[in-house]
């Protein structure tokens, strides 16, 4: 029996997910975060120029993967609380504090959420830090982290190419090539590469457009 809705409109009824690739890497002096720009609803790209680099505080960003709605609301909660606390305390929050707030939301509401977050930034106490908060609501501090559907294609690449205390140029190349490769291999990732470099001077945002992405082995 032909079902019009099932055949033609099914994609539009699917939950909007950020089938994604995101990366965060510490380098000497700060962190670099990078992401692709595709938001998909089934096989329809709802937004091909999404900005997944979400600011939480002045020098703390988060990378969102999983349900777009879930991750957006949680990051705005954490942003609210970090701002309130920094006014109350008179000093900027550390990345650790913001990451632990994410953890509290993700863990306590794990039944309802489908959200994974990477919280990265710079603070004067730890310098650049990256915290990974996967699906269940655990928290782990790492020198670098990857997330999203495209990250599965990057485990080998990252393990072989990551070095501690890279320079900013080396780290930038590391993430750009990584996202490029994931975009090439993962259907859920695509578009452009958005980057942000966070160090003691603040945040610098950069973009690499599709036609400038390096082509790796391609026939």
């Amino acid at each position, binding site marked *: 029996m032909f079902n019009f809705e099932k055949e033609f409109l099914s994609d539009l009824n699917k939950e909007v997910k950020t089938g994604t690739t995101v990366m965060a890497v510490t380098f000497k002096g700060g962190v670099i975060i990078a992401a692709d720009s595709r938001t998909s609803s089934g096989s329809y790209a709802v937004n091909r120029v999404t900005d997944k680099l979400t600011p939480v505080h002045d020098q703390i960003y988060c990378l969102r993967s999983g349900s777009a709605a879930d991750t957006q609301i949680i990051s705005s909660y954490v942003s609210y*609380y970090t701002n309130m*606390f920094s006014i*109350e*305390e*008179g000093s900027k*929050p*550390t990345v*650790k*504090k913001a990451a*632990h*707030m994410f953890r*509290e939301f993700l863990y306590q509401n794990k039944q309802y959420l489908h959200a994974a977050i990477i919280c990265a930034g710079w603070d004067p106490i730890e310098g650049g830090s990256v915290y990974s908060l996967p699906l269940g609501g655990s928290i782990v501090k790492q020198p670098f982290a990857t997330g999203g559907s495209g990250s599965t294609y990057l485990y080998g690449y990252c393990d072989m190419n990551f070095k501690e205390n890279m320079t900013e140029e080396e780290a930038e190349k590391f993430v750009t090539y990584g996202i490029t490769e994931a975009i090439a291999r993962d259907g859920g990732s695509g578009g452009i590469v958005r980057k942000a470099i966070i160090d003691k001077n603040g945040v610098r945002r950069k973009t690499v457009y599709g036609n400038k992405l390096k082509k790796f082995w391609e026939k």
Partner: protein
Amino acid sequence: MSGIGTGYDLYPTTFSPDGRIFQVEYAHKAVENSSTAIGLCCKDGVVFGVEKIILSKMLVEGTNRRVFSVGEHIGIATAGLTADGRRIVQNARQEAKNYENFTSDIIPIHVLTERLSIYVQVFTLYNYIRPFGCSLMIGSYDEEKGPSLYCIEPDSVALGFYGCAIGKGKQEAKTEISKLKLSEMTCKDAVKEIAKILIKTVHDETKEKEMELEMSWICKETKGKHKLVPKKLIEEAVEWVKGQENEED
């Protein structure tokens, strides 16, 4: 019996014609009936001392505490209705724990003080709950920021102090404290000075029964943790005070 506030002093919800809330002022009087507590900020920590009147020889020493820990790094000393003080400390402990659970950091003392201040203020708003009849001194020591001492009164005003006294003998105690050079004093010296003020200046041996000294500190030596001052040090301080008396005679 008619007093100053007659007619305007039944509930905290009534202002007097000259803009005072008498119930809150009466709460202050409750604090002034209690025995004295002193807090000092020294160069390497904060020391609390409380003059505890021993009501009966049957009471176990160290019972009826007036000094409490909140988290590991903050100490609170109370004067006034002890039960009211315990209630506020319970709230403080909740706040500290919730903050720690949420942010993974220990609560900064000025954040805790402000929250307690807001909590105390709520009880001055309604006619079906009374204001707290106690003052609190809140102290903490941090390697970077140094010592901090705050005092919250029943009207919820919270002020930061270098040295503070609350309770019956607070005026005399404050006079003595102002003579001390706090920024050059170590905590061990402060233990002696507080003992001296409480035993000699504040405590009246003719009028009142015996007293017990309850002292606690948060300092470099305790690595920023709130602990009771070791009994030995208190005994040495009491001996020293007695020695001072004899010298002056």
